[in-house]
């Protein structure tokens, strides 16, 4: 039943001499939402960056340990772009590329050379926008600049863009930081549907968001994985480490 899509083994990350993540070992199962919670500076974002090998953009970032996706070590990928194509990423602040709404979503298919005919691409763009719960709001202004949308719409646009390459893994990094509560709820609903098609890693600063969405939750603190477990019991006090329940109950963090 359990299908480990991502296996992280003894992962440590450092920027120069500053260690941000220490000896993390955990699995992410196929078609689950893994919530990652923890206070600021606990290494959550670096964890995501390690998975899609964004360390290549940060020359001082050093990674030890291993990350296996479908059993293959991410460092075995000589062509990183092929790896990143399987992973969709949504950043904390929406990055509306200086393109139209349509072109934002069509970017990945075009980069891949799989855009196909105009009709195919139109359909694909519409499907991605629908799945990101944005279609109804932008269908009349597909050819306006994406950066003219509101913050919440832009964030859903980045989700649509991440979906456009049909990723196996979707990683969201505190996506609701610049989004209003109503939009947050709509995105959360969308994620519950998407789960059936892909594996989702959700880094969140909202403990309740992890409770609502995550099948399992991992708690990071000061660069260490304190514990990872099934969400429901964790949120009902069944934690192995007292710090986890303290954080969940809002005693610190």
């Amino acid at each position: 039943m359990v299908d480990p899509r991502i296996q992280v083994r003894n992962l440590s990350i450092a920027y120069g001499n500053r260690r941000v993540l220490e000896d993390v070992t955990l699995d992410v199962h196929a078609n689950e939402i893994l919530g990652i919670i923890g206070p600021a500076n606990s290494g959550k974002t670096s964890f995501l960056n390690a998975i899609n090998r964004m360390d290549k953009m940060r020359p001082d970032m050093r990674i030890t340990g291993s990350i296996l996706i479908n059993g293959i070590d991410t460092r075995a990928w000589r062509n990183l772009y092929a790896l990143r194509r399987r992973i969709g990423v949504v950043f904390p602040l929406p990055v509306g590329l200086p393109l139209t709404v349509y072109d934002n979503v069509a970017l990945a298919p075009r980069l891949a050379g799989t855009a196909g005919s105009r009709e195919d691409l139109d359909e694909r763009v519409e499907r991605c926008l629908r799945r990101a719960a944005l279609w109804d709001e932008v269908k009349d202004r597909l050819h306006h600049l994406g950066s003219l949308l509101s913050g919440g719409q832009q964030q859903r646009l980045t989700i649509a863009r991440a979906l456009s390459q049909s990723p196996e893994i979707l990683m969201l990094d505190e996506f609701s930081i610049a989004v209003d509560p109503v939009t947050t709820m709509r995105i959360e609903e969308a994620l519950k549907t998407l789960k059936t098609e892909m594996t989702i890693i959700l880094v969140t600063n909202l403990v309740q968001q992890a409770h609502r969405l995550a099948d399992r939750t991992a708690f990071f603190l000061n660069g260490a994985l304190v514990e990872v477990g099934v969400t429901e019991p964790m949120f009902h006090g069944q934690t192995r480490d007292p710090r986890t329940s303290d954080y969940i109950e809002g005693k610190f963090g």
Partner: protein
Amino acid sequence: MTDPRSDRRRPADARDRHWYIDKFFEILMFLCGISAILFVVGIFLFVFREGLGFILQDMNFSEFFFSPKWRPTSLVRPTYGILAMVAGTAAVTVLAMAICLPVSIGAAIYIAEFAKGRTRETLKILIEFLAAIPSVVWGFIALSIMNPLIIDLFDAPMGLGVLNSALILALMAAPIVTSLAEDAFKAVPDTYREAAEALGATRWQAIRQVVLPAARNGLLSAGLLGVGRAFGETMAILMSSGHSINIPTSIFDSFRALTATIAAELGETAVGSPHYRALFAIGIFLFLITFLINMAADFIVRGVRKG
């Protein structure tokens, strides 16, 4: 404490003195700012006053713009046609930009996107060094190095002409275009590159699809300033062009530039003579063109963006 007032009032501190200094500098900076405008207006008025007499009295409009015959010293009938010079200046500017822009933008992409650490710093210093070479030195290079080189390589009768000038101008404009283009690339937020790469874009795809469009305005204005630089250059052109009045038909033809004409002839004319004033009319023409180029660059930088 001995002064009874200091008990009740807060003692005067440095800020009370600095208030006056603050005011003083505010006025000083205002004057500096205003002076830039005054100088531009002053120069414009001066050039206009000297050239206006020619435009109103001696100038034959169609001869000035459409005749290639510039014979201001003719004793029989002096003619003042700038067509050949306009053609020469235009030809050399276009060719210089055709050489300069691809190389400069390529260099800027390398410096801004690929080069790291010492390579990057060294390149930037070298490019700044290139900008610091005086134009007369460029002219010297044109005469003593490029001239024989062009004769040898292309078996041309003469090495001074459009090609020589364009190469020199391209080299002269390259540093400013490169560093402005690099600024334009640096102004593109890194988040764009990360977002593109997270979508599986290769470095080149990210640059081509995301960074270049985002930097478009900055690149256009860099190009226009390069055009302005090439257009207004005088000494290097005077030395590399061959300076003969002639509408160039090949890149090896000699030509004469508008700027070089003023530089070469102004010292030998009688103040107030038609020749003298005709040169100022050319000055007005140059002034208007460079003004338009700079305005265009400015508008583009402000971003006349469409949604």
